[in-house]
């Protein structure tokens, strides 16, 4: 087994320049005598999609609320769109979009009325580069609510309601978008459409997106970079491949031979399979090679943070559990 480095976070580089949309250094938050965040560090560049993962109670919501300017921090340097969120003015507010969990507001409003109304607040903040707000018809089409434009908000289904939330979040054509568990309650088709929308926002409009989710598959699909927040710290920061490789160097190989099942873990899966086939040839059936997934990495890293066990051991234990399943 390859030596696994402790995922003590490699200090995030702080590249200078205006491209830095989020710049968080040593963010700390304390409620009374309880420290919720002790030293969170990360950055995000323009057009980057970041997924913030972590167990419940790890401080994800607190972190996001501080960045949104809805909560004052205890200490640390934070710049959001170049501005301290504790002092952000309305011009700053106009450059970001917020999609929170569980809205039930504006139930009596019609979908189109609500989007047109909220959009009106952004009109004065249009710039040469970004026209604001997003035209209502186009926006309705983008989030797939055109057939429901005349409905009252309380008549929408859960998934439609969530799409409306997303529409409200982007009606001002934000440069930075916060998405708090955006796809809860989506059916697979709606989820796929939503993923396409996120890609479109990030690629075409260069919107920087910070999302939280418990769906690791979603994080893997959407995010350029994944941050794992546990115990009030960022314990991992990288692409999902990087994270997976960091925790578990071994791949898992499964096959059957003469009706018997085999499972083997190897660092060099290709080499192992080559040898296996050379040795047993045609009798090898149902060959499967599985690399460590983001889920494996996540479980291992969080387990390690919570139990204080070294990542390598933790990873191995997760693997073992995985094999026994």
């Amino acid at each position: 087994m390859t030596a696994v480095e402790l995922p003590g976070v490699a200090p995030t580089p702080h590249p200078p320049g205006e491209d830095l949309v989020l710049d968080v250094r040593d963010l700390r938050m304390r409620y009374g005598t309880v420290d919720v965040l002790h030293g969170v560090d990360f950055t995000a560049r323009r057009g980057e999609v970041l997924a913030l993962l972590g167990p419940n109670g790890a401080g994800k919501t607190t972190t996001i609320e501080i960045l949104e300017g809805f909560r004052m921090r205890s200490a640390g340097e934070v710049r959001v769109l170049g501005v301290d969120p504790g002092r952000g003015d309305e011009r700053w507010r106009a450059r970001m979009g917020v999609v929170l969990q569980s809205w039930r507001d504006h139930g009596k409003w019609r979908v189109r009325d609500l989007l047109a109304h909220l959009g009106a607040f952004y009109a004065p903040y249009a710039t040469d580069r970004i026209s604001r707000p997003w035209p209502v018809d186009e926006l309705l089409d983008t989030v797939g609510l055109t057939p429901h434009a005349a409905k009252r908000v309380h008549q929408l289904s859960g998934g439609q309601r969530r799409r409306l939330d997303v529409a409200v979040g982007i009606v001002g054509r934000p440069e930075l978008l916060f998405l708090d568990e955006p796809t809860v309650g989506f059916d697979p088709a709606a989820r796929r459409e939503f993923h396409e929308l996120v890609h479109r926002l990030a690629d075409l409009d260069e919107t920087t997106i910070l999302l939280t989710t418990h769906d690791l598959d979603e994080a893997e699909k959407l995010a350029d970079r994944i941050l794992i927040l546990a115990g009030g710290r960022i314990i991992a920061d990288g692409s999902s491949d990087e994270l997976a490789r960091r925790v578990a160097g071994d791949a898992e190989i499964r096959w059957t031979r003469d009706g018997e099942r085999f499972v083997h873990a190897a660092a060099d899966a290709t080499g192992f399979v080559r040898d296996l086939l050379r040795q047993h040839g045609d009798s090898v059936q149902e060959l499967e090679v599985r690399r460590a997934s983001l889920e494996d990495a996540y479980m291992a890293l969080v387990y390690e943070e919570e139990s204080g066990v070294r990542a390598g051991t933790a990873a191995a234990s997760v693997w073992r559990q995985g094999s026994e399943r």
Partner: protein
Amino acid sequence: MNPTTAAVRAGVQRGVIELRNTFTNAQDLWNYFFPTAVLLVTMFFMRGATVPGTSFSLGARTLPSALGMGLAFGGLIGLSQQLIVDREDGTLLRAKATPNGMLGYLIGKIVMLSAVALIGLVLQLTPALFFLDGIRLTDGGAWLTMAWVVPLGLVATLPLGAVIGSLIENPRNMGLVVLPTFGLIALSGIFYPINGYPGWLQAVAQAFPVYWLGLGMRSALLPPELAAVELGGSWRHLETFGVLGLWAVLGLTLAPVVLRRMARRESGSRVAARREKAMQRAM
């Protein structure tokens, strides 16, 4: 366009939309019409009784008083209720997440509640004219008096409603406001003159806007002779203006501070926590 102008304009638009929404909602309509109907029935049965010391219909005296009470009630209870509900369901947080959204929100509420109060006024006034005698609606002076009493009454009560709504977080505690308000109405000579009350009770009543709104509306709609049976034997316009004005100044001074403090504390997790509580209540 200047951002503040845009927000004010959006706020007015918000008021109009909410007005339309509330007048196409069966539950809301019921809430508006039911008390009005009760009042009208009460006045109908009071039309035979007379104001003590005169031969004037007690029902006709009650009508303008009740209109004044309606204004006070709409301003105080209406706005605080809306604030509490809107805080719970996330409407306020949405406004906070929108540039200048709080300004737009407040203007929307003021437009909407003022319109509801005025519509309520007309709703009660019109049918009452058919069975009550002595209301001088054709008199230009009546409209002139209402033209300052009604807006001043709204300015005196709406900011107070905002303060109350900001201080109460749990919708269940709304009773803390509604019950004393009913007590105050009983004190304020809406349904019966308070000349017979002990002096200190009269003083308490005259410290609050409800009494003066009732008096102001009576002064507008009743014949001048009836001033004689009021406290002090006159309509006391100057005092009405003074007391309502003081409440307006107090409300307008306090409301921005309290509203800002409340808005600052709003966040997604607070809305989520309230939602959880509301769900538990519903179970």
